[in-house]
C-alpha cells in the first residue's frame, strides 16, 4: 500500500487535476444546460444518453492521468527509488495499476458529482445517477490497465493513448463490431446500462454490438486488468527501467 499511496499522491498533486476534473465534468455542464426545458421523463432519458456519449471526454482525462503513473517517475529519474527496493515486480505492477485506477476514479467521481448536482437541480432520479459512479469507476479500472503499461513502455505514451481512444474507441469500433468488444468505454457502458436498465437509440449507438450486462462487463474488465498487469510485470523485468 505504501507504493500505491505514493504513486497516487504523486498523480493527484499536480495542477492538471483541476483541468481533468473539469474535463470529466462536461456531462454535468451539459445536463445542467439541457435540463432547463425538459420534462422529468425526457431528462431521465437524456441523462443516460449524455452520460454515455458526452462522458466519453472522461477517456481523455483518464488517459492523461494514468499514463503518468510510472512515466513521470521514469522521466524525472526517480524510478530507481521505487525499482531498487525488495518488491516483487508483480507487486509493483499491481500497485501501479491500483494507483492509476484510484487517481482516474477520483477524477471520474469528481466529474460524476457535477452530473449528480446538475441532475438534482432538474429532478433527475437518483436511481439513474448513482450507477453513473459505476460507469466511471469501471472505465477507470479498464483505462488504468491499458494506459499505465503504455506509459511505462513508451515516452510518447499520451500520443499512443490518444491513438487508441480516437481510432479504436471512437472511430473503428463503431465500424468494426469485433473492435467494439475491446472498447473500455463500451464495456463500462454495458455495466452502467445494465444497472440502470436503460434502452434507447442513443444507448444502442454508444454500445454498438456490446451487450448490456454488469457481470459480463466486469469479467471483461478483469481480463483486461490481468493482461495489463502481466504486460507491466514483463516490462518491469525485461525492459530498461531508465
Amino acid at each position, binding site marked *: 500500500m505504501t507504493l500505491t499511496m*505514493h504513486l497516487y499522491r504523486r498523480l493527484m498533486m499536480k495542477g492538471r487535476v483541476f483541468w481533468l476534473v473539469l474535463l470529466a465534468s462536461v456531462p454535468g455542464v451539459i445536463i445542467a444546460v439541457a435540463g432547463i426545458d425538459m420534462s422529468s421523463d425526457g431528462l431521465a432519458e437524456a441523462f443516460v444518453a449524455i452520460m454515455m456519449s458526452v462522458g466519453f471526454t472522461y477517456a481523455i482525462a483518464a488517459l492523461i492521468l494514468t499514463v503518468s503513473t510510472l512515466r513521470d517517475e521514469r522521466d524525472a529519474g526517480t524510478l530507481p*527509488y521505487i525499482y531498487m527496493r*525488495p518488491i516483487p515486480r508483480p507487486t509493483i505492477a499491481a500497485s501501479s495499476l491500483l494507483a492509476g485506477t484510484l487517481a482516474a476514479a477520483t477524477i471520474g467521481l469528481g466529474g460524476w458529482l457535477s452530473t449528480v448536482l446538475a441532475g438534482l437541480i432538474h429532478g433527475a432520479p437518483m436511481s439513474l445517477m448513482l450507477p453513473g459512479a459505476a460507469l466511471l469507476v469501471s472505465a477507470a479500472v479498464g483505462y488504468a490497465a491499458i494506459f499505465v503499461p503504455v506509459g511505462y513502455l513508451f515516452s510518447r505514451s499520451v500520443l499512443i493513448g490518444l491513438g487508441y481512444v480516437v481510432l479504436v474507441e471512437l472511430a473503428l469500433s463503431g465500424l468494426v463490431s469485433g473492435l467494439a468488444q475491446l472498447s473500455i468505454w463500451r464495456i463500462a457502458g454495458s455495466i452502467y446500462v445494465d444497472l440502470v436498465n436503460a434502452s434507447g437509440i442513443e444507448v444502442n449507438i454508444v454500445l454498438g454490438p456490446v451487450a448490456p450486462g454488469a457481470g459480463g462487463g466486469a469479467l471483461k474488465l478483469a481480463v483486461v486488468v490481468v493482461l495489463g498487469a502481466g504486460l507491466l510485470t514483463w516490462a518491469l523485468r525485461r525492459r530498461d527501467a531508465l
Partner: protein
Amino acid sequence: MTNTVEVREVSKWFGPKVAVSEVTIGFGPGVTGLLGPNGAGKTTLMRVIAGLQVPSQGSVSVLGRDPRVDPSVYRVMTLVPEDEAVYEHLTGRQFVELAARLAKVDDPVGRAREVLETVELTDAADRALGGYSKGMRQRAKVAAALIPDPQVLLLDEPLNGADPVQRAQLIRLFKELGAAGRTVVVSSHVLREVERMADRVIAMVDGRLAAVGSVATIRAAMTDKPRQVFVDCTDPRRLGSALMATPHVLGVHLSGNRLMIEAADVSQVARLLPRLAVEDDLTISRIEPADESLESVFRYLVEGR
C-alpha cells in the same frame, strides 16, 4: 578477497551506439573508484549492475543473485543515482522514510532518523527537498541509500554539487563504509576525490576497461610511458648534463631551478641523484614524482586510446 559483485562479459548498446563493451570485472569490499571521461560508459555500467538496465549480453550477479531476476537483492544493494531527481514535494525526512517503508525495514521512522544523522541532515530534515541545495539533495539521496544498511553501495557522481565541507564529510563516510567491509563503488570525474577515497581504481574509456588496480600499480604497468620526476636543486643545468650522460635517463627538461627527469626506471634515478649531488657539489632540496597522480595516469589512459 571474494567479490560481492561480478560482471561477466557485459555489453550494453543502444541501437548502433555501444555504451559498454565486453566488460568483465569484480568488485569486493572496500572503495572502488570508477573513472572515465563523459560517455565512457560509467553510468551505464552502474545501471546494469543495479539492474536498472538489461545487459545486451553478459551477466551480472550481486552476492550470487541476478538483480533483474531477484529483487530481494535490493535488501543488500542500493544506488545513489547521478540524476539530481528527488521528490521535491517531500521533506527530507519523508523521502528517507518512504525509502525505509519501501525497503520494508523494521522501524522506518527510527532508521530514517539514524541515517539522516549519519549524513548530518537532521536540522534540515523537515524542509521540502525542493528547497534543498544540490549538496543537500545528494546527502538526502545518500541517506535513502543507507536505509537497508547495504552490503553493496553504488554511488554515481555522489559529490556533485556538494560544497568542500560536505564533500569531506561524504568522503569520510564512504571510506568508513569501505573500511567496514562494504563494497562501495564510486563513479566520479573528480580524480582528486577518487584518489582520496578509493583503494582501487577502474578506468573506463569508450565503454571498455582501460585499467584496473591501485594508481601505483596501473602507473607501474605503463612501461611505454617514461616516469617523470621533478628535482629542485642549486644547479639544475649541471645536474641535467650529468644525468644525460648516464644510460638510465631518457630526457631532461629545465624550468627555472626545477629539473624534470624522464626515466624508464625511477629507482635507478633515485640511486644516481645522491651520487651526482656529491660529485658535482649540488644541493637537492626536493624530489617529487611528476606523473604518479591519478590525474596523470588517467590522462595517459585516455590519450592512449
